[in-house]
């Protein structure tokens, strides 16, 4: 088993966990206010593309990050207003958003950069790694964290911040109330719609950051549909964590490791078609196990 926790594995694991964590936090916040966010996949994709485009045109990684946040927030307006003001079914809206993100980024890839499939260019400024040579030799954790992008540290900080806000601040109390019993919140003067809209938009920003990490934080390349199901894995993490940021984070750690595991298996010679399956199989297994434990006997929920 120790053969598995090599420095390389640890580093790729932490790198893989980062976007999942950010996306899952977005999902947690939306879930808390009662908006089921299944559009994480599309939001991440939009963020990934905007990060590349922003970095390319503004010649800076920070520009890319800013573009990713802005684009993802604007994209999230669809869900924010669609699920509240327009009373649309969040599931349909999210499916539509995911498909829109896929098509729109592919379209813009061709129109803006004249290529299809992938886009890489020396003009794209990637997210630099923050190197901490001091911890480099600390087993396991040091191997994982000594060289990661700023977004990794932001993600970890956010887990703590979101937990703190949710459970210790007035804002957090209201968010929890809005999600649990919106009409009760309404009678106490809390504007449910406004809280939902703002929360979804903030979630969008986080998902955009997740996308930026995917593109700018790894090899500074955009590939069509590069979110590759990670948004869905984040959705499962949120479900398993029951909208609790810490539990969802734990699930993300598990799934991030599965992702790194697939890379490891690939380096051992297994074909990537099979190794790519690892995260999804782990996710499915986690879903099955978690639901087996809390098997409610409601026959009506068939």
């Amino acid at each position, binding site marked *: 088993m120790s053969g598995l926790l090599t420095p390389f594995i640890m580093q790729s694991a932490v790198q893989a966990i980062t976007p999942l964590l950010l996306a899952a936090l977005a999902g947690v916040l939306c879930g808390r206010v009662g908006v089921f966010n299944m559009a994480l996949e599309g939001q991440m994709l939009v963020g990934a593309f905007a990060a590349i485009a922003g970095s390319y045109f503004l010649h800076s990684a920070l520009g890319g990050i800013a573009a990713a946040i802005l684009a993802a927030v604007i994209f999230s307006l*669809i869900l924010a*207003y*669609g699920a509240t003001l*327009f*009373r*649309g*079914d969040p*599931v*349909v*809206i999210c*499916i*539509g*958003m995911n*498909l*829109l993100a*896929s*098509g*729109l980024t*592919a*379209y813009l890839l*061709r*129109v803006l950069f004249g290529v*299809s499939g992938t886009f890489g260019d020396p003009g794209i400024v990637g997210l630099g790694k923050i190197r901490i040579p001091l911890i480099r030799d600390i087993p396991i954790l040091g191997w994982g964290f000594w060289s990661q992008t700023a977004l990794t540290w932001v993600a970890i900080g956010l887990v703590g911040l979101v937990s703190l806000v949710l459970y210790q601040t007035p804002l957090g109390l209201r968010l929890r109330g809005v999600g649990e019993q919106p009409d009760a919140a309404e009678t106490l003067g809390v504007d449910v719609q406004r809280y939902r809209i703002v929360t979804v938009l903030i979630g969008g920003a986080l998902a955009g950051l997740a996308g930026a990490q995917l593109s700018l934080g790894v090899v500074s390349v955009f590939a069509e549909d590069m979110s590759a*199901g990670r948004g*869905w894995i984040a*959705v*499962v993490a949120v*479900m398993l964590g029951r909208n609790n940021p810490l539990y969802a984070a734990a699930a993300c750690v598990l799934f991030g490791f599965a992702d790194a595991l697939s890379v490891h298996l690939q380096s051992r010679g297994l*074909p990537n*078609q*099979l190794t*790519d*399956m690892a995260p*999804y*199989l782990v*996710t*499915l297994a986690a*879903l*099955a196990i978690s*639901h*087996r434990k809390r*098997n*409610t006997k409601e*026959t*009506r*929920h*068939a």
Partner: protein
Amino acid sequence: MTPIAPWYLRPLAAVTAILFAVLIGGMLIIASGANPLAAYWQIVVGSLSPASLSDTLNWATPLVGMTLAAAIPLRGGMVNLGGDGQMVIGGLVGALVPIYLPGLPGPLAALLSLIAAALAGGLYAALAAWGQTRHNIPMLISSLLMSYPAVGITSYIVRFPLRDTATGLPQSEMIPEAARLLTLSGALNLGVLIMAAIGVLAVYIDRTTVAGYELRMRGSNLRFAAYGGVRLPRQAILTMFTSGAIAGTVGAIVVLGSQFRFIDGALLSPAYTWSGLMAALLANGEPLGAIAAGLFFAALQTGGFAMQRETSVPRVLTMVLQSVVILFLAMRHGIARRAT
């Protein structure tokens, strides 16, 4: 005491949504430097002109098939997002049966192949339903997650163990000529007729049978169906089986009728599953409307090829148009109120 919409409201809303999408698409086309009118004209010509009609129908066969695969569960308030996986499983099985059972006479091989593909796709989809009825794992999520391993394994199989030794490409061997679906005219083959028959059957079942009634009631109000005595778990599994069977059949039809082998990725790149899903959502699961929406999207996409060829507007724009239509409809009416 909520006012319920009269029958024409949904088609009217769909038309409005399409107009809205045309507008948005027009802006995107202008942003790429091309002329929207020319682009849209190419879409129309490229899909509906006599020369291109057979292409459109050919594209429509798998697309309408995947539309039905999505629409049938949706009618009952269930969402099958695993069409890709079910389709490739059916496609691979459909290719392997005639290749590895060479003794069979052609038409019998084709028939067996289609049946096996349907069974395979159906069982895989039913597995997701079983996960929900037995273990409360939402089939929406599980069906999607199950798609990835299915795609991975079929891809692996034709890249390694069963790879075509003749060409060395990631594909299966060619299927024997006798097993291929009869060509009707040009690109059109028997698959069109098979799909048309499936479509007719779907509408018939929905409108006139007990099963159709029970599915519609479940889609309208899950608790009402349960209370009225509809056996929900059995219904879920049978419905998803049917859905997956259709998806599997689509895969087999493409393999047996057009490509004559299972090519890694070839079933997925036209994005039939997702266009089909969008067409199903457009019609809220209602079979006839879904078929119409599927035909419309097929025309849109076939026309998109012409648009890209003649005006250089990337044909991926048609996917954008489709999703805008869905999103617009989702807003104005809260479409596809799922019972789940």
